[in-house]
């Protein structure tokens, strides 16, 4: 199989049972000159348009968000994923992730942008009829109209399908009469076009509709007073006998839940990527502050405890970045392969993304939690000033918090990724059973004590990664076997399994990125990235160890437990390295470059 075929054949979730190669993954250092120029133009937009008004935006001048969206539209930033035929640019998925990444440092506006270009626009792009697309997409791509997505209700959050909003066909059959209430609707204050989910009559599942703000019967509450992203418009929206023309039903009746799920898959990985811009901004600010701040007569950036923080922030960010663009390219490759096989473009895009839904969930959880880590340590580096609204960390800290909640809470996403993995195994799409059985067999055999020197680059790290996968398969396989359908009710164990899965993917993506970087730029130029990858792997091993132990304690006992704990110990072995010195090297690189420069 040649390299291209190999890439196309990669399946979502397969990383757990397959040894990936550096050549197969895309790394952000490979972005083209054109993509880099787009990223720079996006950064210029933030610096020249968003940053100067961010304080006013935060203080409640919500209309600035709408104004900024229109400016972003003029620059083409709202049409990245929209085909040229509908006024967009038709760029690939990874480019849209890159733009989301950069815009991640735009505070509240990042949510305004994400809600418009993602959940506010994509349902029409992917599920709209030709007429619907012609009518709405050019306006959404240019920023003439703002989009929003109305799914959540007061009693229907994570359990979205339980919403009470109802649509009933009018007697003349020309309209649906829509009634209901939605909440936490981003961009509601200035949205012109609303994607609304409601059940028709007594349907079991949701349907989706496209509404226009000017139609009678749509009202809104005042702006919500929120913990963070204060500049993003968030309101409750009420629908009171709104007449929705039948042609504004989106896709088929009862197809709404599917739309919601598929669109959220995209939203999730974009949110993961969107964290990166925020992380880098926080690292840059913290590094500069640490350099400038003097205590005991010297710059606090010279203290080991501060270096540890700066380095860890950067290492985790490097990992988020690595896994996001790896998954993004997998999605692009899959889409291209499906189109080449004759599939219609939109269907191919949805199928390509759905294939990597596990990775999308991983991206969302990892990205939002690394962002949380960075803003928390950012506040700590700033010390007392970090607690003051006069310094930028307080806002970053508040703004980051929502990312662990929206687009599916991190708990829902953790459960989903394991659920999807097991379902794919049961359907025979992923052969988890074979490798899991092999691990079981290995458990009762004599351990491999061979310590032969392998000079291949990252040979030791790859062995560790392979073993982590074995640990994951052992724990997940045993939990599934033992608990069967009860596993879905043992959420604590699912969280443990998800942590293992996330860390394996992140660590592998990071190691493979460092390996590919060496291939591209040589060892000398990649030393810090190698440090970062190795440190991340060590941290991942600890997480897998702890999560594995907790899970095993919870569902196994007696000899079975002892055998598994021994296996876990065997599969989470890693050679010692001086992590302190490695972190210092990473921190010194940050300090020397006054920020994240990898």
């Amino acid at each position, binding site marked *: 199989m040649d390299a291209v075929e190999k890439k196309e054949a990669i399946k979502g979730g397969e990383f757990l049972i397959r040894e990936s190669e550096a050549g197969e993954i895309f790394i952000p250092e490979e972005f083209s000159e054109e993509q*880099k*120029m*787009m990223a*720079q*133009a996006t950064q210029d*937009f933030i610096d020249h348009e968003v940053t100067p008004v961010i304080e006013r935006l935060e203080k409640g001048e919500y209309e600035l968000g709408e104004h900024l969206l229109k400016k972003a539209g003029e*620059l083409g930033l709202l049409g990245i994923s929209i085909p040229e035929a509908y006024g967009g640019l038709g760029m690939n998925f990874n480019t849209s992730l890159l733009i989301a990444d950069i815009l991640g440092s735009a505070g509240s506006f990042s949510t305004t942008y994400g809600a418009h270009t993602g959940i506010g626009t994509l349902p029409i792009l992917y599920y709209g009829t030709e007429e619907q697309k012609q009518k709405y997409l050019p306006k959404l791509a240019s920023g003439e109209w703002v989009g929003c997505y109305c799914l959540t209700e007061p009693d229907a959050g994570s359990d979205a399908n339980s919403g009470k909003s109802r649509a009933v066909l009018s007697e003349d059959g020309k309209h649906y009469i829509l009634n209901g209430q939605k909440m936490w609707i981003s961009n509601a204050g200035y949205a012109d076009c609303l994607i609304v989910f409601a059940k028709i009559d007594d349907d079991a599942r949701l349907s989706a509709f496209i509404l226009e703000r000017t139609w009678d019967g749509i009202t809104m509450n005042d702006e919500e007073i929120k913990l963070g992203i204060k500049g993003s418009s968030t309101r409750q929206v009420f629908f009171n006998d709104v007449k929705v023309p039948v042609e504004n039903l989106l896709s088929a009746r009862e197809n709404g839940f599917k739309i919601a799920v598929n669109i959220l898959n995209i939203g999730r990985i974009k949110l993961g990527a969107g964290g990166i811009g925020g992380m880098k901004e926080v690292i840059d600010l913290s590094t500069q502050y640490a350099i400038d701040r003097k205590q005991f007569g010297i710059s606090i950036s010279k203290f080991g405890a501060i270096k540890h923080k700066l380095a860890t922030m950067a290492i985790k960010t490097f990992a988020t970045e690595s896994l996001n663009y790896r998954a993004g390219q997998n999605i692009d490759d899959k889409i291209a392969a499906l189109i080449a096989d004759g599939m219609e473009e939109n269907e191919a895009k949805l199928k390509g993304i759905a294939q990597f839904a596990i990775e999308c969930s991983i991206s969302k959880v990892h990205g939002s939690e690394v962002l949380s880590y960075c803003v928390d340590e950012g506040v700590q580096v700033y010390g007392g000033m970090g607690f003051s609204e006069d310094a930028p960390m307080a806002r970053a800290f508040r703004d980051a918090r929502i990312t662990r909640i929206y687009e599916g809470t991190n708990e829902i996403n953790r459960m989903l990724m394991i659920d999807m993995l097991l379902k794919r195994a049961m359907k025979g799409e992923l052969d988890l059973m074979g490798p899991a059985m092999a691990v079981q067999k290995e458990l009762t055999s004599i351990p491999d004590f061979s310590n032969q020197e392998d000079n291949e680059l990252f040979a030791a790290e790859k062995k560790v990664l392979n073993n982590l996968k074995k640990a994951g398969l052992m724990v997940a396989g045993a939990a599934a076997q033992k608990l069967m359908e009860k596993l879905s009710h043992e959420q604590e164990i699912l969280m443990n399994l998800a942590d293992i899965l996330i860390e394996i993917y992140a660590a592998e993506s990071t190691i493979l990125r460092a390996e590919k970087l060496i291939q591209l730029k040589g060892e000398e130029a990649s030393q810090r990235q190698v440090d970062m990858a190795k440190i991340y792997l060590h941290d991942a091993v600890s997480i897998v160890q702890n999560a594995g132990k907790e899970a095993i304690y919870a569902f196994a006992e007696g000899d079975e437990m002892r055998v598994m704990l021994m296996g876990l110990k065997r599969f989470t072995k890693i050679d010692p390295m001086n992590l302190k010195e490695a972190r210092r090297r990473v921190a010194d690189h940050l300090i020397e470059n006054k920020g994240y*420069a990898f």
Partner: protein
Amino acid sequence: MKILVCITHVPDTTSKISFTENNTKFDISGVQFIIGPYDDYALARAVELKETHSASVTVLNVGGAETEPTIRKALAIGADEAIRINAEPTDSFFVAKQIADVAKDGGYDLILMGRESIDFNGGQVHGMVGELLDLPSVSPVMQLDIEGNTAKISREIEGGKESLEIGLPFVAGCQEPIAEWKIPNMRGIMSARTKPLNVIEPSDNEKKTALESFELPAEKNAVKMVDPDNVSELVDLLKNEAKVI
């Protein structure tokens, strides 16, 4: 109307500046390059004139292949075509000579550039180009409007502002607020790759200067804070430590 905009490829203003080879070479590792900010304004005005006066805009840079991303950015902002003179821009005269040699047969109505680059800040190229082409040159131009064959210009002078009229063609060294600074839009970026970028070899290698070495400015000392009530300490410090009074 034909406009030639000359741009420099310079380190971003936030770059870390260091030198190698015994302080004779600027270390470009890790440095991000941009269009010279003053040149960027000249380009922005040219692109505005393109819309209002259906002008064609050619962008020119003297530099090696590594400057092409910067040139592509100028194309993304709105220039129609580009010329790269394949040579290291060693000094102002050399650069001016290259520009003049290209421009003399180009039939340009306007030759715009920044008032100065932001790496060597010579601020001489526009004057030299004017001289070499026997054209008027004006700098720093902060406002530029075209009516027929005449340009209305306003420029900063010592203690005030000067408004003048000048016939085309001429050379202008520009600075803000001559135009609204432009961020390239995504469509412009995508079309930049299809616009022509012609590489030509330098006409000659005559230089008027030779570089001996670079030197970084001395590091700033730490700021000493003096209590506002303690004027005598301030006087003492200014007199005995800073030795300025």
